[in-house]
């Protein structure tokens, strides 16, 4: 019973506008308000090339010379001692020496996004100082298992101890040495068990994952933690597998799923939030205190009852469903990414209805000039534009390339990485074609059955 003129206004991805938006980011200077993101340029670089790759436009957008020029630029951010800086801003050029290089350190996000950018640009990573990076990763881990952003000369690890850096560190490890566990050519492995323990200790009482023990559950940290567990092959085993005695996370999958689906919200902008704050509905008599409830409790859908599949007919208000990052917060484009990716990795994307989320992104946060804004009516920015696009690609939007959402690149780019000869040697893929690719297993799991819902005692008993 949706109003007909909304139906006439067919929801669609404005493919040409998105290409135009990302080509502009590729070809022209970014507006000066990105100055506060200067130290994140490598992230913006990856988003630019990967978005065009997802849109199927990257090859058309770049001449051979430009492609090589961009690859050279990424390598210009590689440090003599290994690892990457995320921007040219801290480069002292010829003046760089032992005394001042502490102000120009290798950087976990810089290295993560540089490697991915090279992969998307189809570089072979031969010039990457891989052993140096792997040795440095070990130093980036703190005794309790978390990873930091940079390490000082005194060995002190700087930066937050949340799962963002653990996500990137474990992804770097996976890119450079696949699923290989233990020392490699004399370089010790990171302490995988202590990292998993660290993630488990950050699980909140409501099932989400937070920054640190007892912090508030947050979709961004939840996504980073679950993706990292996937890179390390430490997700709970599928129901059919026997317990192997290996420490895994998350510890209570049903609770985490409950938390993730609770991120769906009809509070799409701040004004929606007002419904739950100061008006007359906020009493225990009406109990219409949360926005979702105001809209739904008052207008029960008759069709829902007669629907044989148990899937209710889409109510007018249910056409658009947003996603928030924490309990009782407003919807935000990026949280569609941070919430749907862990669901996909765990193998339970089907427990959210993709159609109204897609419709929210396209009708409410997609911008007329291309890209996505944070909330309804916001101008587009690269961060929300990329993550919004990634969600649609993950949902299988027509015209977009298949993606690996945890790595933020297309499946094509990922296959390129996996095909590189140096990597095939490390992972043993050049010997055995049937070598186990755990990430692929993760995706198979996602498509077939999902991780076990059983309490993790069964995983740990053996």
């Amino acid at each position, binding site marked *: 019973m949706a*109003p007909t003129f909304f139906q006439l206004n067919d929801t669609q991805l404005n493919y040409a506008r998105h290409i135009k938006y990302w080509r502009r980011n590729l070809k022209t*200077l*970014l*507006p*000066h308000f990105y*100055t506060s*993101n*200067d130290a994140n*340029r490598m992230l913006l*670089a990856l988003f630019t090339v990967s978005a065009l790759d997802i849109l199927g436009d990257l090859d058309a957008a770049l001449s051979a010379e430009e492609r*090589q*020029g*961009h690859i*050279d*630029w*990424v390598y210009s951010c590689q440090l003599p001692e290994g690892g990457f800086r995320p921007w*040219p*801003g801290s*480069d*002292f*050029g010829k*003046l760089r020496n032992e*005394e*001042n290089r*502490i102000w120009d350190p290798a950087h976990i996000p810089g290295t993560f996004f540089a490697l991915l950018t090279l992969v998307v640009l189809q570089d072979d990573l031969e010039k990457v100082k891989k052993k140096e990076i792997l040795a440095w990763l070990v130093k980036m881990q703190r005794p309790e298992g978390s990873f930091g952003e*940079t390490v000082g000369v005194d060995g002190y690890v*700087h930066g937050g101890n949340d799962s963002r850096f653990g996500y990137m560190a474990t992804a770097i490890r996976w890119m450079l040495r696949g699923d290989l566990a233990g020392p490699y050519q004399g370089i010790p492995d990171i302490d995988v068990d202590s990292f998993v323990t660290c993630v488990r200790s950050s699980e909140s*009482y*409501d099932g989400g994952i937070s*920054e*640190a023990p*007892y*912090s*508030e559950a947050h979709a961004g940290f939840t996504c980073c933690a679950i993706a990292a567990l996937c890179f390390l092959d430490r997700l709970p085993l599928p129901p059919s597998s026997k317990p192997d005695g290996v420490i895994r996370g998350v510890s209570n999958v*049903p*609770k985490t*799923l*409950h938390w993730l*689906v609770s991120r769906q919200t009809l509070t799409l902008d701040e*004004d929606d939030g*007002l419904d739950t*704050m100061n008006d007359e509905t906020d009493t*225990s008599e009406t109990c219409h*205190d*949360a926005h979702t*409830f105001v809209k*739904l409790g008052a207008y029960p*859908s008759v069709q*829902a*009852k007669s629907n044989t599949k*148990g*899937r*209710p007919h889409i109510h007018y208000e249910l056409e658009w469903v947003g996603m928030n990052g924490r*309990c*009782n*917060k407003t919807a935000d484009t990026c949280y569609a990414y941070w919430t749907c990716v862990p669901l996909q990795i765990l193998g339970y994307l*089907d*427990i*959210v*209805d993709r159609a109204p989320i897609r419709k929210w992104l396209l009708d409410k946060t997609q911008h007329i000039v291309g890209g996505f804004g944070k909330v309804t009516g916001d101008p587009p920015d690269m961060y929300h534009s990329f993550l919004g696009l990634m969600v649609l690609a993950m949902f299988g939007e027509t015209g977009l390339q298949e993606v690996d959402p945890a790595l933020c690149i297309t499946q094509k780019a990922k296959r390129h990485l996996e095909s590189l000869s140096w990597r095939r040697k490390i992972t043993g893929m050049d010997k055995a074609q049937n070598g186990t690719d755990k990430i692929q297993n993760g995706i198979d799991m996602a498509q077939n059955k999902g991780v076990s819902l059983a309490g993790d005692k069964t995983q740990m008993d053996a």
Partner: protein
Amino acid sequence: MAFNFIRAWLRTIFLSPYRLLRALLPKYTTPSRYFEETQVASKSSRMPKFYHDDEAWADMAPLPQDDGGLHPLAAIAYSDEYSEAMGYLRAAMAQNEFSERVLGLTEHIISMNPAHYTVWLYRAKIIAEIGRPLQDEIAWLNPTALKHLKNYQIWHHRHTMIDALGSPDGEPEFISAMVELDSKNYHVWSYRQWLVKRFDLFDKPEELAWTHGMIEEDVRNNSAWNHRYYLVVGGREGKPSADIANREIEYTKAAIRKAPQNQSPWNYILGILRAAELPKSTLKDFATEFADVQNPDHVHSSHALDLLADIYAEEESSKEKAAKALELLATKYDPIRANYWNFRKGLLDQPKVAA
């Protein structure tokens, strides 16, 4: 459907004065007197600062940025002011200069690019080298933090300074001013947790009272509920006593009665039960106050239904009631999560996997 339109239209009209007000008011009005003493000139009123014609910098040659060839990615249209200041910062860092003038330079860079991760480390080193009083640094940080509410580096810096200072004095007031601007700011709450731990404030009555005040102010502030959990459970290594657990259960029940459709206290009370090793069925009668599957037209909370579905699923003879609760959620009381409720319904037939 016409009704929905009228409703939406009316809502827009009624909200417009609020919108107007919001647009007219300055974005960050000073929240309290606390900041007035240290308030610095706002960004817009500040004149650009340059160094090339400044006597004090005549001895230093700036180090311009090498943008890495003809094809840089994500190149930004820097302002002249930023480009030049960054050139001087690189030159100063390259020669490891620690002085008053570079302290000012770091402040200038931070005002334009607070996410510059090593400028903060450099600043910390300068402070140590020139012996700047830590109180002065904190006084400078307060308004800076207000301007960059979502910056990570600022908090890391603050940790370092307060840790070195060894006293939390003044910090609760600072935090109160921050939460007035953004009551759910993740960094502020994380910082508060750090303070509680660093200075062992778990059992300080003021801490719980402050948290209670925040919950009173907005019963939907999940950050406040989470902080309460940190004090009550985290401070007791995950094991609250029976008395404390009962106190928290009663406290939370009162909050739920105020606003039954608010998920924060429902999550909280279940967390308390778990920590106290009490079964969910402890809350069966309470949940039934808000939702009774026998009386499906009078459901006052989807979260109560959700909990009842779990409780019934655990009881051998109540599977049908559990199914009914999940069906009500899927079709009437929480259809945006219909897929999930149907999935849960499917699990009822499987052995023991309830959440």
